[in-house]
């Protein structure tokens, strides 16, 4: 299932809301939680991360990970957190509305 446009940003922000993570960790987390239902080209993650950084929603630092490699670690900023809250509420309402439309059956004919 392909990703809706713009959804990747929310997914990244949500992922980072659990704590700082490097790109690969984010990509692994998405893969695991969606159980491969969403097909994301893993490479697409990185431009998205950098755009979020440009907007000031995340910030990045180079750190040495447990495996001993240098990794660029991203962290949610204050504005990023606010953005995530706003997007979450939009998404929740959207999903709720979609669900209602798709699942409710009419009690009489619509015409």
């Amino acid at each position, binding site marked *: 299932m392909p990703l809706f446009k713009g959804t990747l940003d929310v997914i990244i922000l949500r992922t980072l809301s659990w704590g700082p993570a490097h790109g*690969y960790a984010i990509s692994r987390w998405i893969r695991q939680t969606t159980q491969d239902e969403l097909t994301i080209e893993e*490479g697409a993650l*990185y431009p998205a991360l*950098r755009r979020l950084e*440009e907007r000031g929603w995340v910030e990045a630092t*180079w*750190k040495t990970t447990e495996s001993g*490699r240098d*990794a660029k670690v991203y962290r949610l900023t204050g504005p990023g957190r606010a953005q995530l809250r706003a997007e979450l509420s939009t998404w929740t309402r959207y999903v709720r509305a979609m669900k209602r439309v798709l699942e409710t059956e009419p009690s009489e004919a619509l015409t």
Partner: protein
Amino acid sequence: MRPDEELPLSRELPVDEDVRRELEHHLAERERELLEGGLSPEAARAEARRTFGNLDGVNAECRTITRRARRSVRWSRSVDALAQDLVLAWRLLSKTPAYTTAAVLTLALGIGANAAIFSVVNRTLLQPLPYDRPDELVDIVQESGQGWWSYVPWANMLDLRAQSRSFDGMASYTSGFTTVLTEPGPVATRVASVSQDYFATFHVAAARGRLPAPEEHRVGALPVAVISHDFWIRQFNGASDFARQRIRTDREYQVIGVLPEGFAFPEGTDIWLPIELFGMTTSRTAHNEATIARLRPGATVASADRELDDLTARLASLHAPDFDALGARVQTLQSRLTTTSRSPLYLLLGASALLLLTACTNLASTILARGMARQQEVAVRLAIGAGRLRIIRQLVTESLLLAGLGCLAGLGIAYALLGVFTQLAPASLRLTTMELDGWVLLFTGLTGVTTTVLIGLFPALRTSDASPGMVMRQGGRTGRGRSEQRIWGGLVVAEVALAVTLLCGSLLLIRSFGQVLEVDPGFRTDSILTAEMDLPTAVYADDTKLRQGWIRMLEAARTRPEVARAAMITVLPLTYNPSGSFGIEGVPTGPAGYGPGNGGYRMISEGYFDVMGIPVRRGRDFDRRDVTGAPATVIVNEALVQKYFSDRDPLGLRIQLQSGMDQQGDNWLTIVGIVGDVHHNGLTRPVTPEYFVPLQQRPSRGSSGFLVVRARGQLDALVDPLRAALRAVAPDVVPDFASMDSRLQGSMTDRRFTMVILSAFAVVSLLLAGVGIYGVVSYTAAQRSREMGIRLALGATPVEVRAMVQGHALRQVALGLLIGSLGALFATRLMRSLLYEVQVEDPQSFALAIGLLFAAAWIASFLPARRAARLDPMVTIRSE
């Protein structure tokens, strides 16, 4: 290393590296995971690449985004830094208000004065005249020996025009203040009579209607006139049917055209008439019209001058003895029109340049003093790791802020000065609508800003060649004694020298002005109201009507209770000076039938000398005996007697009016009185021979003249009733009122203007020098406070210490005074023509200038020196 610890690299990797390493990290981790899942190394690598997608594309996209992001961050950071620098600079400057005010004011005065003066100079001297290819337009006069010149006679002009090869058009013109009768009513204005090629020479065409055709430039042609755009609007409301308008002066003219807006040559002319209508004299010694011409492309002023000299010589051989020209003088119209204002304006321009120089010198010493005091601060900041660039930026910001404030204040001063100029300026400068010249403002502004910034950088540059530690060890004391002393000394010397030059110049002008005020004009000016008027020939057509017209107006004026006495004269002192030759009984005339006498010719009514307070030295004033039919009489002034009757008593002798004067009746006039001299041509001009004939006997040249009235009370209160009384008896005459006092003042406006402005400059430069010396002495005294503390502790008295500090400064002042006086001796030579009865090297002025400056310097150095000497030695020694 703990895993969470930031690498030193964390600051910022180069973009390419940053992206490459991040993506490599992803691929490596993915590969490892796949390996753990049991794939072969090759398969794991391939699978990692496959799931990643377009590696190169992602790489490029990431780099683009990050580059863009970093650029915008850098920009916003530098804006922040600038704002910070500005706030910091402002805080520093406002902590030292005296320094800031001094520096800003110094800059402002230099910039303001220069911008204002140069705007005036540019406008009046350098801007081209508003005509097509104005540098081709020239004025031509003829030389008549010993630096004298006169207008080219009509007959000569015709010959020169026909024979010369240097010109594309040549024309004659005259103009005068005339009452013109128009349909809306009479109006007094300037009317020019111009010859056929006049407008073609200017390359001017009619904006509406047409110009006079060649056949209208002829005796007996139908009289036509063209009018200025201004007159068309003012008098005819810009109506398109101007062609039905008639205007009357000596005869009735049909208006046929309107000239383009802005064309009014000679200055202020509203109406142009064909001069040929009046019938031109063929005399080659009648100098009545000015001559204008346009140089042909390729001809120069010098080549045209040479050609006309040759042609004049040829004409002389043909027409002698009725010929009085030795050669011709060609000069550009521009230089001709600015003859009188040129030297004062160049003087002021030079003075304002000196002022700018003084201001910059002063600024240099002020900023330098502060910069030296800040050396230690700079050294400390360098030592704790501040970047040199960062410090330089801070200093530049501070200087720019200072310079910006100075420029702003300078703009204000420039506008204020222009306001003063327009008030004070002589009419000849025509400054009524003055604008600041943007380029000048830019130039002076840049000069000030550059000075400020360059000198502001001093502390940063100076510490750059010494290690910060060295400067700090010196405790901020200036280390390089000798060279530094020389800089300071040099600045003081320069300030003083510049100021003394300006001061000498202005004192010379002030003394000149004083001398001018001492001059007795020879006539009274208090309580005298004058009215210039032109009696239109259309109404006052002959001698009888002219005489009756004047007598009616004089009687009307005398009936007013506010009027004590009233009289008239054709040519009032301080206006212009028409003169004519006369014969003397018993003395042969010159070769051409003229002379030997020459003098100013005036026609007056009874009582003129009485109103003006001009004493009758011998003989009598005109009275009821001097009427038509009675023996013709004349009164002469003492200058005429001295020149022509030094060896005999002129009373009862006769002189003869010659051509150009009125010829009718008895030409031989008996001298009945001798009156005192007046400075007719201005207070600074010598008195000249004058002779006066009575209105009753010779009214024929009295179509224009001046009513002079002695008032009993306020002059202002007299104007309206007098105007009404005159209108009742002469409705077609438009009088132009001015008090005799204001006429006298007006004759000195030029001189006063130059004097006031130059004096203002001199005072400012005196103040600047004072402030500069004060600053330098304060600073050097502060630097030496430890030394002085030791001296005091070792037993020197405060007076001795004060004298030592002050003496040092005064030695430099003395050197400056010496150099400045020598400079002034040279510079004031250039203003010789502006002085009156004062020598260029007037010892009094020089002594006063030197004295004033020395006094100012003494005070300016005394205050800080005394403060330094009063310090408690224990405190100053310990303080370091």
